[in-house]
């Protein structure tokens, strides 16, 4: 099996992306390709699902939307379970693969359940489970395939490829519907084929990382003990705070859209603008994080988030608001999402890498879900301005904390 020689050959086959920065391992690029192709597939569905439900099936999306809200918590729990299973079984690629396969199967399943709202909700739920399952093992594989000095760049490359897929998905879906008007089934079938292609790339080109002596070390108790290791605890706390400072994409775009009433028809383009900035900056900021310190770049990201809220709060009119908000929000993503993983990964023993990363991700996602609900309540209670001011302060606090951590060692504890 080629698996046994994995790490050395990865580094040997590394892709040289810069003169001064580290190499990004071939395995990271392969994982990036899997994510990119998977995102094309899943964003094809996301882009047309409302139209399919409404115009295709004649269902009211509001009813479906209510059901969707339940899945946030489910995804967090699955993430933790998936992380633990991956470490314990020592088969990160297999667990990630199961997650990708589950989501792939959801594409024909969505078509098969027809106009049953319960069926559609169940399939969307299974898709979320697949996503929850694969994220932590994938990020663990990225970190285990990279040298410590190039983690920022590695996650940057991966997130950029991921975002490129997310940007292309809707375009592919619209292309299919343009060629075959009204044939949503063609979108589902081609999305399924593309998801299978991602599985092929995963199976053939991504190498697993198996740690010797894994089973005993990767107990649940060991995983919870991670939180007693100071640097990791600090990272975990910052991840929670970051989540609390995140009001959610829909609120950002909703607020933006309210300020810019002119551009009604262009509402769907707002996330595209943010993602375009994310795509362009993910790798440069990741590499910058490797060079000037990851906490510094992370702090920059929280400043950008705070700036996003302040722009929405002070609301200068027209294009400056639009360009400024989308740029700052894109910088926030590019400077925090992958960088946080690059900060956390070296603080976690290889044997517990997946569980540890799952903990950090779940903290952020869960806190963000709660924060979004709280923001909605604060809006109703005190108005959007007060709610935004609090969120901006929370983001700034997160940034201060991150900046204070800039000198802490990123090394993991000695394996005992």
């Amino acid at each position, binding site marked *: 099996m080629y698996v046994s020689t994995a790490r050395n050959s990865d580094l040997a086959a590394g892709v040289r992306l810069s003169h001064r920065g580290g190499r990004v391992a071939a395995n990271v690029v392969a994982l990036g390709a899997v994510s990119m192709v998977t995102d094309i597939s899943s964003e094809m569905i996301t882009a047309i699902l409302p139209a399919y439900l409404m115009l295709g099936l004649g269902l009211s999306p509001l009813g479906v939307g209510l059901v969707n809200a339940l899945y946030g918590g489910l995804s967090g729990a699955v993430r933790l379970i998936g992380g633990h299973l991956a470490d314990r079984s020592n088969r990160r690629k297999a667990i990630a693969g199961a997650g990708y396969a589950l989501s792939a199967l959801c594409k024909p399943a969505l078509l098969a359940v027809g106009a049953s709202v*319960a069926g559609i909700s169940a399939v969307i739920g299974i898709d979320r489970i697949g996503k929850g399952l694969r994220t932590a093992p994938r990020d663990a594989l990225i970190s285990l395939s990279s040298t410590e000095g190039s983690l920022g760049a590695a996650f940057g490359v991966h997130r950029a490829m991921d975002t490129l897929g997310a940007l292309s998905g809707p375009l592919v879906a619209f292309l299919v519907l343009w*060629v075959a008007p009204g044939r949503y089934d063609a979108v589902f079938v081609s999305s399924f084929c593309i998801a299978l292609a991602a599985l092929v790339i995963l199976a053939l080109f991504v190498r697993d990382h198996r740690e010797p002596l894994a089973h005993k070390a990767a107990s649940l108790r060991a995983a919870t003990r991670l939180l007693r290791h100071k640097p990791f605890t600090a990272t975990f706390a910052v991840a929670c705070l970051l989540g609390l400072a995140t009001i959610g994409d829909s609120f950002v775009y909703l607020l933006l859209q309210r300020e810019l009433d002119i551009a009604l028809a262009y509402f769907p383009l707002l996330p595209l603008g943010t993602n375009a900035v994310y795509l362009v900056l993910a790798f440069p900021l990741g590499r910058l994080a490797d060079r000037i310190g990851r906490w510094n770049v992370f702090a920059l990201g929280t400043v950008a988030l705070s700036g996003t809220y302040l722009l929405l709060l002070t609301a200068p009119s027209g294009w400056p608001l639009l360009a400024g908000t989308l740029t700052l929000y894109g910088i926030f993503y590019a400077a925090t999402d992958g960088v946080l993983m690059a900060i956390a990964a070296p603080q976690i023993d290889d044997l517990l890498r997946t569980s540890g990363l799952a903990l950090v991700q779940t903290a952020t996602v869960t806190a963000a879900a709660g924060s979004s609900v709280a923001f909605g309540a604060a809006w109703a209670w005190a108005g959007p301005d007060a709610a935004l001011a609090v969120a901006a302060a929370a983001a700034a606090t997160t940034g201060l904390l991150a900046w204070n951590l800039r000198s802490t060692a990123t090394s993991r504890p000695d394996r005992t």
Partner: protein
Amino acid sequence: MAANRWRLVAGAACVLVLLAAAVTYVVRASHQVRSAGPGPAANATGSPAAGLGADEGAPATALFDGSDAIVFVDNHPGLEYGRLSAVSRADPGGPRRRSDIRCDRAYAAAGRIVCLRETNDFVGDHEALIMDRELQVLSSYPLAGMPSRARLSSDGTIAAWTVFVTGDSYTTGTFSTRTSILDLRTGRLESNLEKFSIALGGKPYRAADVNIWGVTVAADDRTFYATLATGSRTYLVKGDLAARSLTTLRQNVECPSLSPDGTRIAFKKRVSEDASGRPWRLHVLDLATMTETPLAETRNYDDQALWLDNDTVAYGLLTGQPDQIGVHDLWTVPASGGGTPARLLDFGSSPALAPALTPAPTPTPPPAPAT
């Protein structure tokens, strides 16, 4: 090295086969769409030139003319799907006059038509068209999302529409609505009714999650009714276009439709939390007594009903055939709560009533309320 090369070749071959399968399926679907003719409707002739009955004054190109007509969106699977059409009120199963205009949702009243549709420029980009009965476009407005509901006041001077804003679903999978009201006399567009002042249970109210949909306009062209949703509850609201205000009247009322005499509202009431079953049932609410009556339609109903007269409401219902996605028939049911549903016509959605035109070709504004 040999293993590596084998992997590369096998991987590339698999990916190519999968892509070829995808492309083949899409191309086949494309051919099927383009070669599909009118559906197997028994009683529709499919002749666009078929007249609607005697009419002296109207030009030959008018979609509806001198006699009472039902204007609707044709739902025949295939090329007829989505075409704005009309049939005689006296003979709904008779010949259809089909236009070349495709609408996702439409409404007609007093010589005016509002049509919500996908633009010709870009897939997923929608617009509202205001047309006269000869289908001349008078004005158009960009829409923030997918068409849901469209209405005109009975004299054709106030247009209202609701769309689903889908931009935020890109990442979250949630939906919100946006409802606009247009005064055709002045061209004034209220692009977002959520900006109106809201009184909920008598108290001023504001929240980020407010959604409004399904407007019906009263005869004074100033009062209207709609659905307001916040915090997972829905309310019937009475709106004042001039005062820019919304007042909640009652809970659990969606997609209201005001009767011709202005005394009752047909609406969909959520009767089951189980979204997979039949969550809504068509009801009628008496505005004077606030008593509601369930109508005889018990199948899965999701539409904004149309009053054909003071005793009968019409609505679209999915055919439910597995091979007919998004295909509706039009039905009627007595507004009293008695009787049984009756089929109005096959393969149609978005019903509207275009009464016989009296000599005045353009809508005459009523005594204008102060604005």
